[in-house]
């Protein structure tokens, strides 16, 4: 086994995902512990240029037409053969639609240990964040190659970016026939009536809003503030708001002047879409809600008791 730390680089439609830069930052921390190098692993077809922004000691590149678009099947085979040959100390993936589909399968296929939802690495300790951000768990590298999936929160993407293009070395792609998963097409997201990523005031609602009827109250407030209503995932899954209003992992990333979070607990999947807001004000009844850890102002209160007096005062302020 060598002491290098690999990062499987995720990219979609010509763009490297932030989670891969974040993973590189973590991989560099870990490589310092092991005395190895932080190595990017790039899979694709005619995408060698994507390696140029990676803050890696080197990049291993697999070029094959079957890797032109992500499919779990082709990625699993290619990364499995690389790990089998080189036996790196650890391999990072995003805990994402791409990385999670690959890492777990490889854990079972190659009998390698897997740690998921890792947020940071310090002094060789792998720290994961689970239960919607309410529990931390610490583990360490196993004796064999350890697979790790990363979530955002511990590093900034810039820490994994560099202008000094790393050396790129090609590696052999295994036979990629009999693939059982094929991409038919990409479907672009519906534009929706407003682009929440361009709004400067957002009133965000979460599970705490309880019923569909209560959305009206949030909409009324948003309108008075010259803003728009957006939400966390459960609201969209209930069909109460369209997908175009969703903030977080599979939704939009927003950076408004004011993010007023009503009944949002602050699970990592949501936080990654709004953590960069200029000001976050959170209203939640649960004193342990992780949203209070990233908010500028926190209010431990029942939103329903607050909304009426708030609407009244805001209306009064508008009237001058």
């Amino acid at each position, binding site marked *: 086994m060598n002491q290098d730390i690999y990062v499987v680089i995720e990219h979609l439609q010509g763009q490297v995902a932030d989670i891969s830069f974040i993973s590189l930052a973590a991989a560099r921390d870990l490589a310092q512990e092991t005395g190895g190098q932080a190595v990017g692993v790039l899979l694709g077809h005619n995408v060698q240029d994507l390696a140029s922004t990676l803050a890696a000691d080197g990049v291993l590149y697999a070029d094959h037409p079957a890797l032109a678009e992500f499919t779990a099947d082709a990625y699993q085979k290619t990364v499995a053969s690389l790990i089998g040959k080189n036996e790196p100390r650890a391999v990072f993936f995003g805990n994402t639609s791409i990385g999670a589909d690959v890492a777990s*399968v490889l854990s079972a296929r190659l009998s390698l240990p897997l740690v*998921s939802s890792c947020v940071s690495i310090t002094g060789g300790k792998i720290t994961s964040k689970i239960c919607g951000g309410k529990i931390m768990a610490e583990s360490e590298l196993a004796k064999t190659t350890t697979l790790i999936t990363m979530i955002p929160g511990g590093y900034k993407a810039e820490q994994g970016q560099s202008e000094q293009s790393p050396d790129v070395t090609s590696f052999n792609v295994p036979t990629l026939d009999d693939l059982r998963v094929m991409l038919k097409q990409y479907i672009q997201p519906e534009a929706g009536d407003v682009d929440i990523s361009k709004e400067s005031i957002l009133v965000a609602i979460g599970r705490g809003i309880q019923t569909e009827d209560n959305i009206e109250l949030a909409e009324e407030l948003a309108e008075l*503030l010259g803003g728009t209503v957006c939400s966390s995932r459960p609201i969209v899954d209930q069909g109460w708001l369209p997908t175009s209003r969703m903030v977080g992992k599979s939704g*939009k990333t927003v950076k408004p002047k*004011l993010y007023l979070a009503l009944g949002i607990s602050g699970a990592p999947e949501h936080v990654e879409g709004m953590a960069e807001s200029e000001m976050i004000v959170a209203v939640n009844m649960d004193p342990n809600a992780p949203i209070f850890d990233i908010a500028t102002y926190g209010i431990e209160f029942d939103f329903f008791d607050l909304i009426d007096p708030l609407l009244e005062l805001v209306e009064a302020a508008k009237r001058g």
Partner: protein
Amino acid sequence: MTNIVAIVKMVPDLVEELEINDNGTGLARDWLRLIINEFDNHAIEQAILLKERDGGEVTVIAPEAEGVEDMLFTTAAKGADRMIKLTSDFAEDTNNHALARAFAETAKAFQPDLILTGVQANDDLDGPVGPLVAEYLGMPYVGYISGVMIEDGKAIVRKEYPGGLIGEMEVVLPAVLGIQAGEEPPRYVAISKVRQMMKTTEIDEQEIPELDPSGGARINRMYLPEAAGRAEMITGGEEEIAAKLVEIFKEVGAL
């Protein structure tokens, strides 16, 4: 006709306060309130929708846990044909690798065309269950799914990517899919219907003689996060808080 197995587990209810066990390596289970993993609930909805659309059977498999029987009878009330409770020595350190081996072994007997499960669960520490089950059964896996159609022995699925992008994928069956959201929100069933199921249906029990957790992360320490950059808390009655909020709104130019 699609033969579907839904794989489901109970997870901590995050509305409740969570505590760490005496060893400091896991959650304290004594007072822990469990609920169905919300993504598994979506997987059940998707399974029932497929059955209603194309015909077939739905078998739901879940490991023994507090509240699991009520949950299983609820799936029966929604339209599941068969419920299986796995029994074993599910100790505090059971991980998804051990569960996945048990699920795979049990699911195999039904020769499913499709295995649906939640894309993740809030207590996953060694990856989600779905891809592990897929690999143990030699089936393909695709996760982050929010739409499934069966056509000519294949599944056409909608896979979610960041920013709302969807990848439409074709998957050879049999396959395991990790469901992010069903095509419809999980349906509501009346308690009376669940009660009726308790009288008229039965949950099969299957014992898993030995759990094999190898491949999971070994947890050295579990703890509650320290409140790092904690928010400045605004306190007082609703009038006071509302007044303070108006000031903040003015400060950022919203008023």
